[in-house]
């Protein structure tokens, strides 16, 4: 028997991931051993502390540029930057998830097993404390995302995909109110997610087949091998292109790009709003982190071949998101389509494989995450007796009822519309500039045109809030608890600061914009 050779593992470099996964396991134990009335506080503190600890480790590791755990994980500039981004945004999302003042017991159902719409369910909706299992679930999801953006081979990437997707499916089903809608959303997300995973896995298999037979190398699905295979594999290129297409489909599904976006509006609408915010911010970062790595590291040499196809997908995504946002009547669906359109803009960044393009895309991801979390934070506050009032007609005249929150929301919408002095403008600038320099003029033109269209639904909401008289059905804006207020303020301030003085974060992104290969 030959001696088993263990791969060397750099535990310090992996610390953020290990901390999050460890905290999640600890959270499961907390569920079992800590008395019910204390769990909320303990779980929330545990999750936030874990995020802080992981963030500290990311900062400490910030100069690492290495590949570890065999060749499974790459800890390099983009990985660290995106991990930092995910952790900061996740901390904001956790603040929203932990809110229990706006609605008694929080946004989550107390006992998910109680039949929806039954008398018992109505009783627990009134004020029973929400389930605290959400914290370990969120922590697992964050851990999975951290692996996802650092994965250096396709199998690790697939496992990370499942690690962060499964908790999200569950989280979507846990809304306190409108539970049928929530469960329907979760089921749809789960079934379609599983479907997309199958595409991804099949793609991995084809790529594995493609890498066999390179002289002097064994077959494998790590990115260095794939990159070498793209240049010198004797295998049929049909394998490569079919595999690349299937991988792209799996990732584009998570990124909510058309035509794989169909789940997004339903899931965004049905999921509890803090979870929607978490998905819109963190899942987006993770999905695009993976897309960037797959297409700029593994398939970099084939960029002439995939760029036209992904470009068409990007334009279609922008178009679908922008045009359909115009017809929406529900604020969460409106934000869902806006998130789809933003996926289109981000794809433009993925197709600009320069240092500037990479740093612009990473900047965009983080800036957008701040804004979108703040937007969903406001959505959680506008409510009436039945919970959140998400129909747009209910928002008419909100500016008269609550000028402060209406101003905040107006500011965020202006940021989405890309009005200058908000992060929405600087980030579009940071992404379109390099794309044009790379000769992707048609993508930039499509991006500018659709963002002009997309500004319209946002401004329609602004006008409704400010210029209409409040009706009898105009809901009140709840006074936010400290947690929501903190998350909202972080989001708004970041949107403003990144709009007025984006240079520090852009410099940071530029400094990090190089993959290890």
């Amino acid at each position, binding site marked *: 028997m030959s001696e088993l050779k263990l791969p060397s593992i750099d535990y310090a470099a992996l610390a953020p991931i290990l901390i999050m996964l460890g905290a999640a396991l600890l959270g499961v134990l907390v569920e079992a051993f800590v008395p019910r009335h204390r769990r909320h506080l303990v779980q929330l503190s545990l999750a936030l502390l874990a995020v802080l600890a992981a963030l500290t480790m990311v900062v400490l590791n910030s100069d690492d540029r290495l590949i570890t755990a065999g060749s499974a994980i790459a800890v390099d500039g983009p990985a660290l930057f995106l991990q930092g981004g995910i952790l900061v945004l996740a901390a904001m999302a956790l603040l929203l998830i932990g809110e229990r003042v706006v609605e008694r017991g929080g946004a989550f159902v107390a006992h998910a097993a109680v039949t929806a719409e039954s008398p018992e369910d109505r009783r627990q909706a009134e004020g029973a404390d929400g389930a605290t299992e959400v914290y370990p679930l969120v922590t697992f999801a964050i851990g999975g995302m951290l692996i996802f953006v650092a994965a250096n081979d396709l199998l690790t990437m697939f496992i990370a995909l499942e690690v962060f997707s499964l908790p999200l499916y569950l989280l979507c089903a846990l809304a306190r109110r409108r539970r049928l809608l929530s469960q329907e959303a979760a089921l749809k997300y789960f079934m379609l997610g599983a479907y997309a995973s199958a595409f991804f896995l099949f793609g991995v298999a084809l790529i594995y087949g493609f890498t066999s037979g390179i002289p002097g190398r064994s077959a494998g699905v790590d990115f260095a091998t794939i990159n070498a295979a793209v240049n010198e594999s004797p295998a049929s290129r049909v394998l490569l292109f079919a595999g690349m297409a*299937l991988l*792209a489909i799996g990732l584009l599904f998570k990124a909510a790009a058309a035509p794989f976006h169909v789940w997004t509006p339903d899931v965004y609408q049905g999921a509890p709003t803090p979870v929607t915010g978490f998905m819109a911010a963190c899942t987006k970062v993770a999905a695009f982190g993976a897309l960037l790595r797959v297409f700029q590291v593994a398939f970099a040499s084939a960029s002439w071949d995939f760029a036209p196809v992904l470009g068409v997908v990007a334009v279609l995504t922008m178009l679908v998101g922008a045009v359909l946002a115009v017809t929406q009547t529900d604020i969460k669906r409106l934000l869902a389509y806006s998130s789809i359109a933003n996926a289109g803009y981000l794809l433009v960044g993925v197709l600009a494989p320069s240092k500037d393009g990479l740093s612009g895309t990473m900047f965009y991801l983080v800036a957008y995450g701040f804004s979108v979390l703040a937007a969903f934070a406001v959505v959680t506050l506008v409510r009436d007796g039945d919970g959140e009032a998400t129909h747009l007609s209910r928002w008419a005249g909100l500016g008269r009822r609550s000028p402060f929150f209406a101003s905040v929301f107006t500011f965020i919408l202006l940021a989405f519309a890309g009005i200058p002095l908000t992060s929405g403008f600087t980030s579009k600038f940071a992404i379109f500039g390099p794309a*044009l320099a790379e000769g992707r003029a048609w993508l930039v033109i499509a991006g*500018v045109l659709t963002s002009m269209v997309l500004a319209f639904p946002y401004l329609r909401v602004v006008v409704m809030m400010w210029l209409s008289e409040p009706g009898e059905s105009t809901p009140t804006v709840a006074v936010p608890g400290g947690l929501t207020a903190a998350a909202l303020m972080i989001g708004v301030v970041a949107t403003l600061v990144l709009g007025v003085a984006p240079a520090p974060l852009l410099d940071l992104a530029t400094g990090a914009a190089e993959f290890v290969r």
Partner: protein
Amino acid sequence: MGEILTNAPAEPAGAVTYATADGLLTSVWLLVAIPLVSAAVLLLLGRRADRWGHWLGVSAIGVSFVLGLASFFQLRGLENKSVELSLWDFITVGDLRVDFGLLFDPLSALFVLLITGVGFLIHLYAVEYMSHDGGRRRFFGYFNLFVAAMLLLVLGNNYVMLYVGWEGVGLASYLLISFWQDRPSAATAGKKAFLMNRVGDAGLAIAIFIMFATLGTTQYDEVFSNVGALTGGTVLVLGLLLLLGAAGKSGQFPLQAWLPDAMEGPTPVSALIHAATMVTAGVYLIARSNPVFSANTTLQLVVVSVGALTLLMGCIIGAAKDDIKRVLAWSTVSQIGYMFLGVGLGGGAYALAIIHLLAHGFFKANMFLGAGSVMHGMKDQVDIRRFGGLAKHMRITWITFMMGWLAIIGIPPLSGYFSKEPIIAAAFGREDWTAWLFGGAALLGAGLTAFYMTRLFVLTFHGPKRWTEEIEHPHESPKLMTVPLILLAIGSIGAGFLLSTSVPDWLTATAGLGGEHAEHHPVLSHAVITALSLLVTVLGAGLAWFLFRRGTATAPQPAGVLVTAARRNLYTDAFNETVFEKPGIFLTRALVFLDNRGVDGLVNGLAAAVGGGSGRLRRLQTGFVRSYATSILTGALLVVAAFLAVQAGWLA
């Protein structure tokens, strides 16, 4: 830092350098900051500021004006009259650097004085005009926001800063047009203005990206110094996109339709934004970018054509309208056409266009506020067929409006004569047969302007009364409204002469403006042109006086082809509807259908349609997972097929 460089020679390909600001000029940022802070206070304090908010708004603009005046005199004493104040690095992506900085030079100084000076008077007027409106504080908040954005637009030292202000004024304008949201027409007008402006904005945005891609910068000095190195095609595309942006903001062909509809907003808004300042931003953009436009003669020809076409369109439509504010709006479209004509001619005509812009700011604001005063006294009536004989009842409004009228039609010695006539002469000064084309258009426009403005004036203030029953005794407006009118009337009288003697020299210090005068023989001598333009003016005015001195029918009369076309805005709205609106609606519906039903739904729908069974159609509900899965599968098949097609070499 601190190094004062000598001013660049005013030639397009030459290097452009700006000096660094010192002394009082380091505080030009306050010009923008003061109205901005005031707007924030007004909008954030809410009802608490209702009692004194409007005075805060007025004084913010007043302070800005005084500061602008002080900076203006400071600038006069400098050697290099273009000073730059760099505040901080705005955007840095790799090699792309955008400075958050301001540029105070003769051109922007003039604009600052116009915006804050005329703006102050209009703010003052609005205090009284809006006094019965519950939203007055909010109105002043938006109004201040507009002024701040407009000042940023003209003070930025690069195209991105200009774009920042550009979006800001668009936003404020949209809010102010829709201010009376409960009127459906105001809401529609707001949307129309917004959408048409977005078309222009897209042009400007893409132009800025092209600058980045080709020149690697958007700083004015660097762009202007390097524009000569670009290929002719690039300059042409760049210029056309800039022109598209300018046309959108300034209501020029083919994006002119929003401006007259924007009159649904309160009258002070029409006066400040849609007559004196924002709509002239397009002229500013072209004048500022003159090294780009001067670098390509085709480009100049396009600008001149747009100007000439729009000025005639505005005149013709203006002559057929009966709404006092719409006539003035079309006249604005037409006058800005003159300015485009001027900036398109290039060379010395840049300065002429700017003079006309400033003079127009005075007399058009004067007439809009006069129209507001008339409406104030006539219970918000806007139909000139229902006015008449108001001269006796509103002496001050009458006299001041008369000054505006005489100024716009170009009777010496009022301002319009000094600003418009030189543009006509410059149009005749072109070298080839186009001199006759554009000169003739400008001359014809002068005659038509005299006709429709006289019609407006006579029908409103003279002839028999044609008032609606409920008006017994129209009253003159209060002092707070008439004092700004009087001051603006004085401006309408004197501004032209003063400007035409001082501004050209002043502007030569701006990069590229007012430069070389090519010596050649114009097709007509200047004296002949002057005589001709006075003649057509008197003819047009006389004809209108003769036709309308006894009033007019109070209901629409059947009319010939031309008048009917003019009443319908020369069918441009119908054109927009068929070419843009309907396909847009169709695209939206198609996408909604596909997105809701999924491809599965489409297939089912086809099957149901073929089978003729309505029962099957009922099953077409939205949101089935299987429909979604089918969509994804279809998409997946397409993506895989596309990749394989690339591999087979069909697409790449």
